[in-house]
Every structure is written in C-alpha cells, then in structure tokens.
C-alpha cells in the first residue's frame, strides 16, 4: 500500500483550504479602502482646524495687545495732558495772584506816598 509519507509528502498539513487561510486578510482590503480616506481626511481636517484656530488666536492676541497698548498710551497721554493743563492753570493762577498782590502792594505804596 502506498502512503503519501513514503512518497516524501507530508501528512501533517491539516485540512484547512488555502482560500480559508487568506480569506481573513483579503476581506479587510475593502474596509481599508473605504475607511482609510475617511480617517485620514478627518486627521487632515483636525490639523487644518487646529492651524486655523492657532493663527486666529495669534491674530487676536496681537490685535488685543495692540489695542491694550494703544489704550494705555491714550490714558497716559490724557493723564499727562490733564497734568499739563493743571500745571498751566496753577501757573496762571499763581501769576495772576502774584500780579494782583503786586498791584495791591503798589496801590498801597502809592497811597502811603501821597
């Protein structure tokens, strides 16, 4: 009786057919084709959005910083202006007061002389 082992053929190969061995791997192919583009486009969109938000935030931060700086400068300026105005007023008041005092003094001196 011939047996396959004597003919140099193996008998420990099991009974699973070749297509059964590769069926699982091949069945995933359409899923990869279908889902990979969705996933990758999603990752791309997330990154694009992140970049957009980043640049918007940067722009907003710059605008806010500029506005703040401008407001601060304006406040400083008006403070300085007010101070200058006050100083001016004080100077005028002092000068007027001084002039009046001098005029009054002169008037009393004149009276005393006459």
């Amino acid at each position, binding site marked *: 009786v011939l047996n396959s082992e004597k003919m140099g053929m*193996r008998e*420990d*190969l*099991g009974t*699973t057919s*070749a*297509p059964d*061995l*590769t069926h*699982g*791997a*091949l069945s*995933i*192919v359409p899923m*990869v*084709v279908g889902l*990979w*583009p969705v996933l*990758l*486009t999603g*990752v*791309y969109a997330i*990154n*694009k959005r*992140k*970049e957009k938000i980043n640049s918007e935030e940067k722009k907003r931060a710059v605008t806010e910083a500029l506005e703040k700086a401008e407001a601060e400068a304006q406040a400083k300026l008006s403070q300085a202006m007010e101070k200058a105005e006050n100083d001016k007023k004080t100077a005028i008041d002092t000068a007027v007061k001084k002039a009046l005092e001098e005029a009054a003094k002169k008037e009393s001196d004149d009276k005393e002389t006459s």
Partner: protein
Amino acid sequence: MSDTTAHVGSPRYSAFNVIAGIILALGLVVTVLRFTGGLSSVTNLDDHNPWGIWIGFDLMVGVALAAGGYVTSAAVYIFGMKKYHSAVRPAVLTGFLGYTLVVIALHYDVGRPWRLPYPFIMQQGTTSLLFEVAACVALYLTVLFLEFSPAALEWLGLERARNWAVKLTMVLTIFGVILSTLHQSSLGALFLIAPSKLHPLWYSSYIPLYFFVSSVIAGLSMVICESSMSYKYFKDKMDDTHMKEKESVTLGFGKAASLVLAGYFVIKVIGIAADNNWSLLATGYGAWYMVELLGFVALPCFLYAVGVREKNITLIKWTAAWTVLGIVVNRLNVSWIAFNYHLPSSERYFPHIAEIVISIFLVTVGILFSDYCHPDAYFI
C-alpha cells in the same frame, strides 16, 4: 547636472566608480544569462523553494525600505508636521526609485515577465493575495511617479503643469497611504497560505500587521539614514531650510521610530502569546527569534529613546542603520531562513552566486540613480 557629474568624477569617488562598474558589468552578463537560459541557469530555485532572495531581499526588503515616501508625506501633509517638509522630496524620490527597482527585480524572478500585466487584462483572480500585491505595486508606483512629478516638471520649466501636480498632493498622499497599507501588509499576508512551511514563531495570523507596522519603522529609519548620507555627500548643495530642518527631522523621526518599535515589540509578544509559542523560544530557532526581537526591535527602541532624550544625533543615525539591518533580517527570516524549516539541510535553499550578483547589481543601480539625480530632486 554638471555639478553632479563633476563630483562623481572626482578622485574621492573613483574607487566607488570602479567597483560599481565591475558590479554593473557582472550584472549585465547575468541578466543576459537569465533571459536566454531561463531561471534554472542562474538560480538555485526549485519546487520546494520557488522564491529566493530576488523575492526575499529585492522585493520584500525593497518595498519595506521604500516606505519612507508614504510615512514622510503622511506626516507632513496629513498629520500637519510641516517642520519636516524638507524630508518629503528625498523620501518620495527614494520610494519611487525603490519601487521601480522592485518592479525590475520582479522581471528577473517571474518565469514569464511579459505576463506581469495579466492580472489586469486577462484574469483578475481577486481571491489571490498575489492579485492584491500586483495591483498595489502597479498603482503605488504610479502614485509615487505623480508625487514625484512636481520636481520633474520644475526641471522642465513647465510651471502650469507643476502647479496642477502640486494641487494633487493631498489626494495622492491619501492614495499613497491606502496603497502602502495594503501593499506592505499583503506581502506578509502572502505567507498566511503556508503555515506548514513557515516556522510557527514567524507564522502568525497577525503577520500582515507585522509587515505593515515594521514598514513604518523601516520608512522612518531610512529617512534618517538618507538624511545623514545626503548631508555627507551633498552638503554644499543643501539650501538653508534643509540645513535648519535636518536636525529636527533626525530627532523627530527618531522619536517616532522609538514609539513605533515599542508598539511593534508589544504586538510581536502578543503574537507569541496568542499562538502559545513560548516553548518554541527554547529551541535553536527560538534563540534566533529572540535575537531578532531583542536585538533588532527592543534594542533600537531603547537606543532611539536615549538618542532623542540626549539629543545625540550620532547615536540616532547608527540606531537607524541598525534598525534598517533589522528589517532586512526580519524579511529574510520570513522568506528564507525560517521558511521550509522542516526540510533537511540538503534540500534547503541557498542563493546561487548569480542571484546574489543580481541583487547587488540592483542595489548598485539604485545608488547610482540617486547619485546621478539632479540635486534639485533632493533639496527643493
């Protein structure tokens, strides 16, 4: 182009040129023998061993090492890592050259190479993994050609066509990732059909996943290797952006490679556990498996991590070269060393000298092509 020719002709390259010339001459002689005398005249292939190193090395290793193209373009265009932009073009060029050589190598290995287009025009055979492999090689080579076309169109001065090609970048990158996922994994899946031939430590139902994940590692490591090689030989032709980004590419890719290697190590161990192959680790093949797993997966994972933490560029570069060697070892283990492990040594395959000559010939052709390519292909 004249610059390139001049530097190749310089004395620094003369020894290389002589050796390359000898290899090319030998390769051409074997090519004539192969296509006049058939496979049996130049190979040791037989019914037990229908695939030799032309598949195990030229195709399996070639495809894995060409993965830098899809890995880099996905990182830059999809994952938004724009700081690695300067690495895209050299990686795509290497991918394109690698795949072209794989297709050329296939012409040597396939008995009747003129029938290579048959899966598309005669009979599809969609239940065969080889159909998937054929479809992916053909489609991905086309995608790489289109991805590379902006560089070619720039040289030709076709500005409008170039702008059109650039607009396709995103779509081509997604196509490239899909096709590479399928192609890299299908090369592993080819072995699913042979549980009785491939040693159980390497045979696993996860083998398609192993091939895919390891291709990412190969791609990252190849980009690091290329970047250091191109720096060595083309330093004077690099623009400022390339010089500035060079270090960040090495550090970033090294970090990514370390992470992916860690994941790869874990899924390899899960594979052993899933098939309960622990006892096989105590055998001779088990020892060799441990060399691959610890020496070429765990060790580079650790060394990459150390290199990145200490910003040690030299360590990262050497680790990249070691990792590339590990990928070669893995592909040769699966396709050759652990394949037909049950056969007596007299029936085991060892490549014919002519097979080795053709493999070296194709690698040399690849190096010469990269070398002679216009520097713009690397650094714009």
